[in-house]
């Protein structure tokens, strides 16, 4: 399992695949929400609340937020390793990049937990 995970998270192809799959999930969610809003112009709070109480909808939202989390993690890591490097900004780069990555991880984790809390009211 760890082997699979290591392979899954740290190779180029898996990163590439994850970026594409998560992008599709996010697009699907966006289309669904926008579509829903357009087809329900006179939306009430009750209606909206009812929709988001559906288990299927809650799972969909959670999966999407998880997709955002993965997408952001891989994408931002890529940006950080491109720009925050010793070559570009000197020896302080490694420390700075690690700090930024840690911050990024915490923010992502926070949003994930918050999402679960909202969706399931824990």
């Amino acid at each position, binding site marked *: 399992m760890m082997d699979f995970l290591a392979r899954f998270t*740290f*190779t*180029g*192809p*898996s*990163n*590439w*695949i994850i970026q594409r799959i998560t992008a599709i999930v996010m697009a699907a969610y966006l289309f669904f929400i926008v579509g829903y809003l357009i087809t329900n112009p006179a939306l009430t709070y009750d209606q909206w609340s009812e929709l988001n109480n559906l288990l299927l909808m809650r799972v969909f939202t959670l999966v999407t937020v998880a997709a955002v989390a993965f997408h952001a993690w891989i994408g931002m890591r*890529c940006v950080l*390793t*491109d*720009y925050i*490097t010793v*070559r*570009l900004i000197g020896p302080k780069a490694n420390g700075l990049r690690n700090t930024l990555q840690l911050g990024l991880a915490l923010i992502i984790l926070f949003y994930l937990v918050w999402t679960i809390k909202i969706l399931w009211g824990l």
Partner: protein
Amino acid sequence: MLNVSIYRYNPEVDAEPFMQDFEFDTQGKDLMVLDVLEKLKIQDPSLVFRRSCREGVCGSDGVNISGKNGLACITPLSECVRGDKLVIRPLPGLPVIRDLVIDMSQFYAQYEKIQPYMINNSPPPAIERLQSPEERKKLDGLYECILCACCSTACPSFWWNPEKFIGPSGLLQAYRFLADSRDTATEERLANLDDPFSVFRCHGIMNCVQVCPKGLNPTKAIGHIRNMLIRNAA
């Protein structure tokens, strides 16, 4: 009169690089940039650049000409002079040794990393290994690379991660061996490339395609490698 502005830096003399202007009389001829450099070197023998074949096949004289990487020997003035001005700088992104000469070690190191040689451990036949014209055709557009580094030094990803990203030239050569029907090390080659940097730092910017003096298309080759890697992982 042509105004030629050239990047100068001699580590023994100059505290820092500077641009030096030369006036040059083309006598109305559409010379190659290398001809201009050669003539200026007669005036000022301390001007340093690499050159060898002067016909675009050895890859020595890759320089940045009025903002675009190219081979000095096959770039005519008519293609690169704006107004009356020609600006020649070393290829960007790698350390400058002197004037237009860069230290290409990093570029060569990436080339060596992809195992740029045929691997086939089965005992060879008494004659050549057979290869159909169709199989051979797959190598066209790949084997012609002259290692001039115009592409890799035009690639922002290579500027950012020259130690980790193979760069367009090295990847073009990686695919040259992956695509060769006679090579049997496909798995091994792919395994060496499947980290997040070697191949996947190509963001499809396509500067490489735009500058390649041999008209090759590294981005396309990189796409092929990526597809092979993904198929292999799935």
